[in-house]
Each structure stands twice: as C-alpha cells, then as structure tokens.
C-alpha cells in the first residue's frame, strides 16, 4: 500500500491527475443532492404582492399636473400659488384639457422644477415607446405647450398670435414683473406671511431645517435679483414693475384678450399667473397676508388687468 502510494507520488503522471482534478471541481461546484432537493421545494410560500404606497400615482387614467399647491387646493382644482405652475395650469385649462392636480415639490420632478405632467396611460399610445425606457412618460414644463397642442380636443387648438411685438412684451413679464414678484415675496416683509406658510412650513417640522430652507430661499432670490443689478433697490424694482403693468394694460387696450385674440392663450396665461397671485388677498389662506402691498397696489390700479384676471377666474376656475 505505502509503496504504491509513494510510487504514484514520486512519479506523478498527468494522465492520472487530470480526472482527479475534474472530479474535485465537480464536487466543489455542483450542489450537493440534499441541498438541491431542499431548494427544489422553494418557494415554500409566496406572499401576495404588497399594496402600492399611498402616495403612488392613483389616477393613472387621467392626466396629472404636478404643481405647488396644498392638498386641499389640489383636490378642489384651485389655482396654484406658484406663478410658473399657475401659468401652465391656466394654459391647459384654456386648451380644454381635463386634468387632475397633484400637490408636489421640486424634488419630485425629473427636471428639478415644477410643473410637470404625467399623461394618462390609456392615451399615451404615441408616447408608449418613450415610456418603455422611462417606465413612465413625463412632460416637463418646457414641452407642455407642444403637448397641449397635441392633446387638446378638435378645434380647441390655440394659435398663438403672430404679432412681432410678442417677444418684446413677454420680456416685460419675464423680467420686470418677475423681479418685482421675487422681491415682494421673498425679500420684503411679506416673506413671513406669504412665503413661509406656502413654501417653507410644509417642507419640514424641524424648526432648524425650516430656518435653513428659509435662508436658502431668500439668498437664491437675492442672487437672482443681483444678476441684473449690483444692488437690490426696491423703488427701482417697483418702478419697473409699474412701467411693465402700464405697458401691458396699454397692449390689452379694450380687447378681451391680448393681441385681440378670440380666446385666451399662453400669453394671457403668463400675465394671469402674476396678476391673479398679486390680486388674491387670501393667497396664503388667511386674510391680510399681504403686509407689504406696494406691488399689489400697482396691479390694483390697472383696471384693464384686473378685469382680464376676473374674466379668466370666472371662465375657467
């Protein structure tokens, strides 16, 4: 025995070793029979699938527009308190599109900014190819106009007026009015009565987190204003806003809608987004939330713009 062993040990031939190695690897990598039998019996029990989380999109058969809003306001379809969101909310209403609102925040948006729209899955056949990769097709705010054109009813499509002054007057809203809005909401005393209950208190219950959110928000607004001027001068901002409102009122003239259109369009929506919020005396849900009403008074003095806002509010909200 021992001699035989030592013989094989002394003269190791490859022929004898290989099958042994193969056998060894077989025994290492193959599953032992009892364990295999055990695992063949799995799953022992399969549980029913979990319910969707409560916050999962519930209305998949309706278009859902995600905006800054309160839960109550979203259910009632009330105007959003954010100008950018309100603009698109109004525009989609003008298009005659039926949609639901969902209170949301920036973190929910794929692009990082509200509003965005999740189309109903039933009508999303054309967008089906995209949605395969994404799991869900999402319309960000810069594509909402195109989407609205494609999805509105027959004869409801809104033709934007081809006036050559369109861009110039739009810059009044985007520059002058927006800057005054940013100042009056975030940097004036209105901050504690308007921006706080609307934007800051819902984000967290921790007072320190709230405080840091508030200061981030204020410094972001200040940085935005400092892009076009070296200091933030309230009088100048208000004067520019007043000029803009005067120009808009002049542009509206006696027409019902801007540029003499037959029905309101994106232009009316962008003006309404600011005039409505400035004229809404219960913006934060409480009477007297406008502590600093200087910009608000500028709009209130413009009867044409006030009438324009009333018409939209009555007709579509």
């Amino acid at each position: 025995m021992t001699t035989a062993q030592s013989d094989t040990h002394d003269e190791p031939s490859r022929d004898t070793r290989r099958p042994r190695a193969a056998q060894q690897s077989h025994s290492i990598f193959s599953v032992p029979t009892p364990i295999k039998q055990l695992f063949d019996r799995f799953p022992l029990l399969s549980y029913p699938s979990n319910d969707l989380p409560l916050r999962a999109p519930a209305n998949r058969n309706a278009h859902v527009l995600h905006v800054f809003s309160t839960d109550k306001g979203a259910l009632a379809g009330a105007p959003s308190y954010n100008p950018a969101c309100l603009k698109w909310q109004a525009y989609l209403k003008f298009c005659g599109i039926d949609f639901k609102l969902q209170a949301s925040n920036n973190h929910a948006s794929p692009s990082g900014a509200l509003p965005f729209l999740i189309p109903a899955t039933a009508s999303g056949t054309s967008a089906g190819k995209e949605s395969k990769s994404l799991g869900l097709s999402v319309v960000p705010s810069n594509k909402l106009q195109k989407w609205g054109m494609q999805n509105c009813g027959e004869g409801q499509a809104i033709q934007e007026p081809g006036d050559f002054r369109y861009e110039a007057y739009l810059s009044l809203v985007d520059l002058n009015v927006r800057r005054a809005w940013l100042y009056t909401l975030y940097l004036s005393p209105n901050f504690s009565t308007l921006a706080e209950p609307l934007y800051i208190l819902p984000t967290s219950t921790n007072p320190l987190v709230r405080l840091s959110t508030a200061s981030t928000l204020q410094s972001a607004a200040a940085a935005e204003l400092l892009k076009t001027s070296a200091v933030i001068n309230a009088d100048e901002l208000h004067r520019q806003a007043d000029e803009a409102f005067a120009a808009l009122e002049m542009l509206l003239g006696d027409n019902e809608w801007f540029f003499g259109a037959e029905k309101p369009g994106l232009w009316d929506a962008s003006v309404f987004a600011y005039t409505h919020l400035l004229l809404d005396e219960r913006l934060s849900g409480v009477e007297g939330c406008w502590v600093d009403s200087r910009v608000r008074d500028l709009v209130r003095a413009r009867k044409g713009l006030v009438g324009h806002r009333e018409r939209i509010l009555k007709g579509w909200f």
Partner: protein
Amino acid sequence: MPFELHIWGPAFGLPSIDPECAATVAYFARIIPQGQWTLIADYDTSISPQNEFPVLIDGASKTTGFSNIVSYLRNHHSGAYDLDYSLTHEQQTDRTAYVSFLRSTAGPLLDLFLYVSSENYNAATSSAYTAILPWLANYTIPPKRRDLARARTSHLGLSSLDVDEATEETRGPGSGTASSEYEAAKRAAGIPTEGQPKALNLGRRKGLGGLLSSPIYAARFKLDALSSEVFDPISDLLGKKDYLLDGDKPSSLDCLAFGYLSLMLYAPAPQAWLKEAIGTKYPRILRYIRRLRAELLGGVEIDSALVWSITNGKDTETPQNLPWQPRCRQGLVTSAVKAANQIMGNMPVVSAMVRNQVVIQDDGKSLISASRSSLPSSWVLNTIAACSALATAGLAGLAIHQRRNPREGLLIFWALRPSTGFNAFGEAESFLSVLAGQMQGGASM
C-alpha cells in the same frame, strides 16, 4: 453746472465697454449740447448709489442706469433733453417693452460673446480692460464682471464655450519639457512637426460628426438659435424704417440698441459669430448700426490710450469730439484703502468671511411692521450657538487639562474586568469556555 457722466472706459473704438454706458453716451451726444456735459472714464463704482455705471451727477443728485438717467433728464429739465418727446403713447409703450427685451435677451448674448467664451475673453475683452483700468484693478474688476456674466448665462447651458483651449495642447504627455515647447512653437508658426503627421483633422477618429459635435460647433448651433431670437424681433421692428420707433428721428431705444449691437459688431473677437450672423442674415441691422454710429457719435474711432491719458490728466491738448475729462484724483490713503478692500474681496477664503451682506435698498420697508414669523427667531439661534460654543470650549479645556497633567501609571478600567472569570459566557455559550481556557493558557504561557 454741466452734467457729469461717469462710465466704464472706451473699448474697441466705441465710447464704452459696457452696453448701457455706450448707450448713455450716445444719448448725451445726440441731445445735450457740447459744453453742457462732461464724460469721465471711471472705474470706481463706489461713487454710484447703486454701485453701477453709468452714473449721472447733476449737482447733488446722482442717477444710475440708462433708463433712470433718461427719465431723470425728461422729468427734471422740462423736457428739453428728451429724445422721445415726439413719440405717441403707443410708441412709448413699445419702447418700454423693447428696452426690457434688449436687456433680457441681448444682454446674455453679449455676456456669452465677450465674457463667457474664453477665447474671446482672453483675446479681446481682457486686453480692452487693460487699456482702461489701472494695473491693480485688472486683477479684480474683469474677473468679477466675468463671473457675473457666467451667472447671468448659466441657464442657457453654454458653459462649454468656457473651455480654455490652451489646456488641450499643454495637457499632453511630456508637456512642459523643452522639446514639447519647441514642438508647440513650431506648430504655432505653421511648420509641420515630425512628431505627429497631421494630414487633416477630419480623421477616422473624429469624422464630420465628431467635428460637429466638438464643443465649439455644438455650441454654435445653439448660439445661432439664440442670436436669431434677439435679431428677428429687432429686424421685424426696424422693418424698412431708418429707426426702430419713429421713422425719421432716433429715440432712446435706438441709443440702447446701439449700445448692445455695436459691441456685438465691432468687438474684434476671434470667435466672431455675432458679427457673422449680423453680416450674413441681417444686412438691414448692419446698415442700421453703421448709420447710428455715424449719426450719434460722428463715426469716430475712440482711442482708449488717448482717453486713458486724458483721464489721468496727462493730456489735455488733443481735441476730441466727446467731452472727456480727467477724473478727480483721490488721496493716496483713500485709494490705498479701496485697493486693499478689493484685494480682500478677491482672496478665496478671506472674501467669504469679509463679504458683507447683500445690499437691499428699501425705504418703505421700515414703515411696515414686521409680522410674527413662525420660524425660530435670531435670539433662539444665538442661544443655541452660545450653548454649543460653551460646550465645545468646555470639552477643549478638559482635553488640554488632561494633556498637561497626564495621569501617572497605567489607566486601568476596573469595572470592565470580568469578575467571575470566563464562566460569564452563560450556559448557552458554555462551550466557549474551552476557548477561554485556551486563551488563559496562552496568556499564562
């Protein structure tokens, strides 16, 4: 007493490197008679209440900004210096709209062209600033204005223009050696180097698609779209008229348009995409700017070096068609303090600590009683900060004390020593006591 207009100094043969300043100069040259105004190429914005140029100083009152200066002249001098008096009400409204249109669209475009595009900035803008600033301010003012331009254009997503092309060449292996510098010099001189046979850049590696997707060309498509967003509405407004609003007379809007468009057209930038766009697609705008330049400023090339010597009071002889005046000399101490402030503001760490709060000017704010905020007030915050500072100081003191008076001998935590030996593993883990025995044996050995 004549009006005193302070602006950023001249550049590219134009009255100012800043569009609003150039527009203001054009306005003044058009309507205010010679001798009633002086022009000062300045660089110290602290004389302005809003920390910006242009500033109009009329006696005790100071006015900042093109629009404000125009409305100041309209309101305070009984309409004598108003270019817009003949405009109809509707045209006045259009003027307001187009002024804000130019600011919001042509402004960012000019920012991209002069400041963000690193090639243009290095070749044209920074050298133009060198001609109008004292040497020290060259290290602070142009970078600051470039950062501002970057902030203004960040939403356009064109920061790829900001790539320093030099890095591409010098980052190769063996850069910085004498031979690579020699090769680079030869390349720059146009002599073919034996190092790398460059037949055509359109190699297999890149192809036409690769060439078009290189940052400068990819940006080019976007830039063309942006520039047509600016020029199309202006071209529509101009139509076949001579001026933007009124048919036969320039208005304040023409002056502002001249300020923005002339810088786009006349800046000798290596990447002259704006100039090409105006030249090829908008010949009417091209003729319009040339005509405005001849009418408003007499079509003279302004020599920055000459103006610089006038500003410093060295040359008062040479006649100019604009009333350039020397800037009043400051005392050595004030200028030293200002220089120190500027340097402090630009140091990376120091500026963060020294930087003062954002300036908000609001006279009406104090009249409004601040309402109660539901956020923690500042005294709560201060209390928390004080408490944590106290706790930190206490711990630090303790640590220093320990360090100073170290305990003699070994520190033994008696409480942690097992009192009942290794049987303390409990019944379930009683087999571990074997291990414990080994450990004990090992320890005793």
